[in-house]
């Protein structure tokens, strides 16, 4: 078994374990209802980790895009594309949870709140990243244009992260830097559950990243082998 496959199995196993721990914590260890938000606060434990993981996946695209522009090595373009795809997958899951939470707490399916709107822009922008890729044939040109979007697009991710702090928004801010350092204002058991869910999503993202890059490499290998048979 190759090292990459070992990583894949290790990350998948870790993700399964931590997800189980996170779900047990969410439904059995944390308070049933939290003041004002009620039972729907249970969505929080996986909703926020998904938002962070989606940002991490887009950061992979940012770093790989920079690496491609510096080295011109197409392997970085593969990593950038995979990062963007995973960011969108976690983004889709995040929006699904978010829309249901919005409906249950605010009574509407969607509101043009700065946080929600800016995240929608992020999703549309990374969607455009794939539209652009499919419209250019030359591999080098495709990678160069995509890298530009991969780098500039991260500005929208950063804006989404800070939007609740710089703009008037109804979206709650749970974590902030206070006088005594990093403050969350949530109970110990809630924090443990939240961290389990967050590391579960990181492990799942890492497993999917390794799987997807392996798929891309195997596809290239298959093309190479077909050429050798044909030639």
């Amino acid at each position, binding site marked *: 078994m190759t090292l990459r496959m070992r990583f894949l199995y290790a990350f998948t196993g870790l993700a399964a374990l931590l997800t189980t721990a996170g779900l047990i914590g969410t439904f059995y260890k944390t308070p049933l209802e939290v003041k*004002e938000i009620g039972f729907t606060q249970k969505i929080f434990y*996986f909703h926020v980790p998904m938002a962070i993981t989606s940002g991490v996946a887009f950061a992979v695209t940012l770093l790989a895009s920079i690496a491609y522009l510096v080295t011109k090595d197409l392997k970085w373009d593969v990593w950038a594309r995979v990062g963007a795809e995973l960011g969108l997958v976690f983004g889709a899951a995040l929006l699904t949870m978010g829309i249901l939470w919005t409906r249950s707490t605010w*009574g509407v399916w969607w509101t043009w709140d700065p946080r929600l709107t800016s995240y929608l822009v992020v999703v549309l922008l990374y969607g455009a990243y794939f539209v652009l890729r499919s419209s250019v044939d030359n591999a080098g040109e495709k990678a160069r244009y995509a890298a530009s979007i991969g780098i500039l697009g991260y500005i929208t991710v950063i804006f989404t992260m800070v939007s609740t702090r710089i703009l008037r928004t109804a979206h709650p801010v749970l974590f902030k830097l206070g006088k005594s350092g990093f403050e969350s204002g949530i109970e110990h058991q809630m924090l443990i559950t939240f961290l389990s869910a967050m590391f579960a999503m990181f492990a799942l993202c890492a497993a999917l990243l390794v799987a997807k890059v392996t798929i891309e490499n195997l596809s290239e290998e298959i093309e190479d082998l077909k050429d050798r048979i044909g030639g």
Partner: protein
Amino acid sequence: MVLKEVPLATAIAYVAAAYIGIWVILFGYLLSMGSKLSGLRRQVEVLTEAVERKEKSVGTRA
């Protein structure tokens, strides 16, 4: 935006829908990756054998 109080049964339905929704998306994606990966690995094995057979036959003829 005013917070809306919903009955517990309705809240449970929203939470269940949210969790089912994300696991359908994430596990669906994970399973599709897994099946694609195993399919490609099988294809690489078959093609590698074919290349080896071809190279052997070329070597024998030479």
